[in-house]
């Protein structure tokens, strides 16, 4: 079964370095990091990002009372995902980021290169109220507008 990054807890020091990005977040909110693909029982490549899917291990960055913590979780589809923000990760992309001197900057680059895809599960106002502005802006994700 595909795992998003291994071992996921190696990401804890990265979150600790960027404490200022996570400080404004409301307790209990999280980022889910889910592998984009999995192999089914017949060895076929399947997309995980579906309303419902086979259980897939995911990494969570969960805002606990004191700080942002890395946790393990199980992704069973979008319909049951409680996170506010979802990062969908191509095989190996997070390991590339972690190997980098500044993993969050590398993550931003991977987002731009579509090795990591980004989705939100809340409205813009809810995201703002829950304190996501700093984090999303740091990843270069525009809060407003589109059209290129």
């Amino acid at each position, binding site marked *: 079964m595909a795992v998003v990054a291994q071992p996921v807890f190696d990401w804890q020091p990265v979150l600790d370095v960027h404490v200022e990005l996570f400080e404004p977040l409301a307790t209990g909110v999280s980022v889910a990091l889910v592998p984009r693909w999995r192999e089914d029982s017949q060895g076929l490549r399947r997309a995980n990002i579906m309303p419902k899917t086979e259980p897939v291990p995911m990494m969570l960055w969960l805002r606990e009372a004191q700080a942002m913590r890395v946790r393990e979780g199980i992704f069973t589809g979008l319909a049951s995902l409680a996170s506010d923000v979802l990062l969908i990760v191509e095989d190996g992309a997070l390991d590339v980021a972690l190997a980098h001197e500044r993993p969050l900057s590398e993550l931003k680059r991977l987002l731009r290169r579509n090795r990591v895809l980004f989705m939100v599960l809340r409205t813009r106002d809810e995201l703002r109220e829950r304190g996501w502005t700093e984090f999303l802006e740091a990843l270069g994700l525009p809060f407003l507008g*589109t059209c290129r």
Partner: protein
Amino acid sequence: MSERSGEAKLPHLFRRGRLGRYATKNMIKYGACCVSNYNTRDGHITPRELARTRVIANTGCGIITNQGAYPDPKGEGKSYFRMVALYDDKFLPQFETIAGYIHEAGAVAIQQILHAGRYGGIDLGYCVQPSVVPQTLPHFRPPREMSKDDIRRCIREHVDAAKRAIRAGFDGVEVTSFMGYLLASFNSRFTNQRSDEYGGSLENRGRFMRELIDAVKQALPEHPFVIRLNGAELMDQWGGNNEDECFELMKQAAGCGVDMISVTVGWQEAPESSIGRDVAPGHWNYLAARAKRECPDTLVAFGNRLPDPRMADACLAKGEFDYWEVCRPMLADPDLVHKAAEDRLDEVRRCIGSLNCLSRVFRDLPYSCTMNPALGHEVEPEYSVTPAAVKKKIMVIGAGPAGMEFAITARRRGHEVTVYDRADHIGGNLLGYATRDLARPDDLLSVVRHYEVMATKLGVELKLNTEANAKLMRSVLHQYDVCVVAAGARIDLSAYDGVPGHERLVDALAVAAGRVEPGKRVVVIGAGKIGLVVAEYLKKNGTEVTLVEAEKRIAGDVMPTFKWRHTAWVEELEIPVLTSTRLVRVTADGAVVVDAKGTETTLPADTVIAAAPRVANQALFAEFEWMVDELHGCGDALMPRGMDAAIHEGYRLGVRI
């Protein structure tokens, strides 16, 4: 020149055409480019919009598409803050007026029905979708899945809106199955993950679109039906349709008997550019050509990022598409078609792809255009160019965009205008910006060329290589009634007076203007628009560059729709960026900087360039106060901003002086 001379040079654009049972006077379609945010929050069209639409009607196009209206009373289809609605007869009177304007101008009138789907529900807190696939941009609302009943209701609402448009006097309707709007999201593999007959295969995904086309065509068999479809979604990496699938969907629409396919590019959330200045004019033409090949019996309209009538005429000659569908070029210059017909193409104000228009729409503001300061103000006589009641002699100091825009506007009103600039050319700092721009120098240079042409044609006197100062002013005392200071802004080098070694700093404007050649290793202080343009240009041309920015993020003063472009360039060019970092010392070896934690770093450099802060050149206001009857200012000389403010202020002063 007679009108025919221009038409003869563009014979394919200016030949007669036919859309269904309607003859068109030429092969030009005004693309729905008018989601304007000028209307009321509940979808009623305002006098401001009507005045704007009258200008659109008179652009000279053979077909005019009126802006997209949402068809449902709940507003699930509503995507813009003040978008117009067509779900009830109460909206009819203004649509009747618009259809009347279009017919008066001799054009075929098409009303667009726009259900934004994924980008809709602006007032509702949710949007409707084939499946619950979350948004990739926080700007939009979380999706809810449509039931089959919802689909049937939505088709009925489209039919009702279409019938209403025809009752209002429109000749035909256009439906939006592109850009990620509702039908496009059913067509897409990415957003449509249904397992019923509306999902799965391409055939199933296109079912909603086909049913909707059939229903509207059955209700209105005599009236042309146009559909907008993507030739490329640019959503492949998200799992969206590839180009082959897009063309299969086009064939489905053609098979349903649509009269015209309007080919477009990109979804709103697509991660790459489709219509910005960084995309070369003509880049997407191959999509239209393929549409024509795949659907030879259906009219194809196209024009995304194809701003030049000569290029469009050549495409028509080759049979690449049938109608040139123009949008932003006519925002920038509503007289484009007339100028083409009259062989006055050199007078056209080109759309420079700045995307100021869409930046504003996505901030829920009325749209405006960098190149057309009157756009959106057509209802206000104060914004039109009228003969001046008192003809004045005017001196302008500064031949940048503010000064030149003012000069040609004031001259058109009958004033006598002389422009002074100490440089040996016009264009001011825009020229440095244009030549260093990574996106498309030719677009920005076209602005300077336009001023050159118009100054010559209108008879604006230019006095170049002439510094305006108290001495000059004394020498022309009482010769001018008005002085306009459009002297721009400079980098405020005095801000670094306390920095040891500050005398080694080099001015970014001098580098941009080509007056100073920097060394091989450069540090640029300030990652706003000027610092970014200079740094990117130098890096692209082989210089080693580091950017230093005191704020937390770069591009703070850059227009929202262009910020991402700079971020991407900085990344692609691998320019190191130090944010929350200040300059503390300049030495022979480079720049010493300090970050927010107080850590000092030495950045080796041959040249340290200051690109911020800027300060307005206002000294002349004080010097000239007692020397001339009227003294005014415009552009960066009032406050350093950018090209848009310079052009708009120059115009606004010109129409009222």
